[in-house]
């Protein structure tokens, strides 16, 4: 069966002509209703998208991580890192520079004496000794270079200190150890291991006479 075509709409002029022919008064034109005066509509605000479950979950997860980080920082004694470990590391490095400088000066004192003696001796022996004296001067370049490398490490430690302080402050934790509070890091070494501490700092280290006195008392 063929599809029905939709009915044609009669044009208004055609309608009028038809009504006139039929002697009918054309229906009065419908008075167009005055359009109400409308004030400018406010711009449509975009609808707030409903928070997606995965985004909410992600934010909660981040909050848990931050809380955990804060607990861990508080428990590992990050303040101790600033108060004890970093200054100790810095002091040890400065002590290295001091010790190498002292040793280099002692070497140079001796080498200068040897040089004078070799110059006075002259001859082949004197020349041979002077060649080795020169080699020692060249080798003593090491003190300058180790000093510069150590200065770079000290600079890194200072940067670590600043970073740790910043992290503690951001997480609302104290940046320094409160007065009177014991250190959070405890030395747990026992037996022989506890006796391995390396050289003491120069200003605290006992000299041989002190050790002899201690030895005699022990």
């Amino acid at each position, binding site marked *: 069966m063929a599809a029905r075509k939709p009915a044609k709409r009669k044009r208004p002029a055609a309608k009028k002509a038809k009504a006139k022919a039929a002697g009918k008064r054309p229906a009065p034109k419908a008075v167009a209703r005055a359009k109400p005066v409308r004030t400018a509509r406010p711009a449509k605000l975009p609808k707030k998208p409903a928070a997606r479950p995965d985004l909410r979950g992600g934010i909660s997860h981040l909050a848990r991580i931050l809380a955990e980080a804060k607990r861990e920082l508080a428990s590992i004694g990050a303040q101790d890192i600033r108060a004890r470990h970093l200054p100790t590391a810095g002091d040890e490095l400065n002590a290295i520079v001091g010790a190498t400088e002292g040793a280099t000066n002692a070497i140079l004192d001796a080498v200068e004496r040897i*040089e004078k003696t070799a110059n006075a001796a002259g001859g082949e022996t004197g020349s041979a000794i002077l060649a080795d004296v*020169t080699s020692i*001067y*060249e080798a003593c370049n090491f*003190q*300058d*270079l180790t000093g*510069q490398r150590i200065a770079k490490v000290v600079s890194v430690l200072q940067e670590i200190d600043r970073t740790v302080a910043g992290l503690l402050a951001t997480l609302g934790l104290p940046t320094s150890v409160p007065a009177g509070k014991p250190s959070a890091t405890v030395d747990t070494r026992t037996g022989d291991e506890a006796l391995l501490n390396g050289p003491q700092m120069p200003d605290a280290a006992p000299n041989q006479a002190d050790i002899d006195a201690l030895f005699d008392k022990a």
Partner: protein
Amino acid sequence: MAVDLRMNVLIVDDYKTMLRIVKNLLNQIGFTNVDEAEDGSAALQKVRQKEYGLIISDWNMQPMTGLQFLQEVRADAKLKHIPFIMVTAESKTENVIAAKQAGVNNYIVKPFNAAVLKGKIATVLGDF
């Protein structure tokens, strides 16, 4: 013209041991009038008070670096002629270029040996 080994030489370094080493090596070469300074600003005062035939300077010093000292020397009409050798641990390409552009006569990288020091001085002043 032969190099006058009696000329005043100024050596500049913030490490006293390095000053001692360079001075002793210069003495071995034959330079006997060697003065020392521990940074660029102290060195600048010295060069303004005494005539020097050669400056040998470190770079990494405070408060005035060797590069700043070199720039001051080259900017001063009375000092700009003084031969200047940089002796430094700074060894990047940009360091060498910066020193060259500032007017350094030669560049020795640490650690150095006596032969290199003598060779560079000869390159700058002439054979001796």
